[in-house]
């Protein structure tokens, strides 16, 4: 299962730069990223190449960081994938894309989603990029 980080950040200039700076300084590569904002704060969600190191770094910097399990699917057959999920009643809470032709999705029922996608012949990647 693929792990995604989400970090609570204040919605002001420099906060994202600070986070990215910390990751870069520690040689951690960001493979995908999405931001959701509400007023003075937001959540940055991302997939990185070194989960353990990234987690340690962010905790050390006193960040409010969370890990969640997400699915990585093929971007090219996205229409087919979301249709398949809707048929079995799986909801996609949020999604964002990766630059290697893949999409990150967070679903409300992973087991059911993987089963439905596999049966439809759609890829659920075991690795990130």
């Amino acid at each position, binding site marked *: 299962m693929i792990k995604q980080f989400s970090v609570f950040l204040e919605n002001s200039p420099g906060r994202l730069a600070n986070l990215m700076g910390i990751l870069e300084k520690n040689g951690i590569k960001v493979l995908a990223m999405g931001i959701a904002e509400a007023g003075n704060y937001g959540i940055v969600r991302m997939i990185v190449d070194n989960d353990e190191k990234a987690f340690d770094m962010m905790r050390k910097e006193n960040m409010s960081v*969370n890990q969640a399990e997400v699915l990585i699917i093929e971007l090219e057959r996205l229409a087919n994938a979301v249709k398949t999920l809707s048929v079995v009643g799986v909801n996609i809470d949020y999604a964002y894309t990766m630059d290697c032709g893949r999409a990150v999705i967070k679903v409300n029922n992973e087991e059911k989603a993987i089963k439905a996608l596999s049966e439809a012949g759609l890829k659920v990647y075991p690795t990130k990029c």
Partner: protein
Amino acid sequence: MITKSYIMPRSEILELQSRRLRSLVRNVYEGSPFYRKRLDDAGITPEDIRSKDDLRRIPFTTKSDLRDNYPLGMLSTPKSNLVRLHASSGTTGNPTVVAYTLRDIDNWAELNARCLEIAGATSADVVQVAYGYGLFTGGLGLHYGAEKLGAKVIPASTGSTKRQIKLMKDLGTTVICCTPSYGLFLAESAREEGLDPKEDLRLRIGVFGAEPWSEMTRKLLEEELVESAHDIYGMSELNGPGVAMECRAKKGLHIWEDHYIVEIIDPTTGEVLPPGEKGEMAVTTIMKEGMPLLRYRTRDMTILNEEVCECGLSHARIMRIIGRTDDMLKIRGICVFPSQIEEILASMENVTPHYQLVINRDGPMDKLMVRVEISEDFKTDRLTDIVDLQRRLENQLRDTLSINASVELLEPKTIPRSEGKAQRIVDMRKI
């Protein structure tokens, strides 16, 4: 060593109070030109004050009386009898100077020793005093008290947090005395040093004062730093720390009534309120020699409870200070105390006790914004959870305070930590 003379039945306390009040009024009338004039102007002679009930005939003494009579116009004894002078920070105008005779210093030490004792400290304890030493009374007050108890004192004073933690560890500190906000900072710092404060340090008792704090802060301090966290109350005008202290029952702070007479008054009208009602505390220092005060308006809001405590002491208890009349924020005409907001934050998960209140004026309307750090342990990947937390906080504030406050959630550790009193209020109203 301290004596156990403070354990006495309530009737004896009341008798002592009346006797000591009579002699105090005589002393200030003879020794203090300020009070002689005050009493003359009010048409009162020392003989008129027979018992505690006559006290309410005497006019109040206020902070401005102290400022107006700067530096030593409030003395009731010749300057030659003084052995110590302390002064408060005079951020606006003159500082407040307080003066002690040798007997005052000794009594003050005795009261602080009692405070430590009712919290459970003994002569076997190692007491680290991390209140400021110097003009501020916190450090020296507890220092003398701990020595009087026969404990071992580490006069660490404030700051140098790394060294504080090292001393605690290496010297086996068992009692820490500091502000509650510094207590939390010590716990955080110890963790950053790779220590688990509850495992690697041996802090049995925390004596936390000099700023108002809440049950949530107690819970945090007891989870993160000390076995038992106790509130201590005092102010330099009344000697300094050691005026009142939480015993092990933690149901209010015992005020040493053989040294202080407490009245709870309506802060607006000055009328004395019956026990159990919330009001401003006015204190008469019946044992002080150097600079005793009659009915001193502390500007601290509390409730007095005269029932005998389950710990057995019959010295009345004040409720944890609800706020200061000068911290009292008037927002759209409604009185709000920062401590009330702290209690609300305490009751909520996923936020910390680190907060700031920003008051602004939008046209004719006051606006209160509560800025609070979210907890590092708040785990979510969903924005809705965070928005929900913000809404719940705003609803809670509205329900409890009857005002609309907006909440701004902040990243952990973004509000500056202070080593003294926390700066919690930013008033940007231009009046």
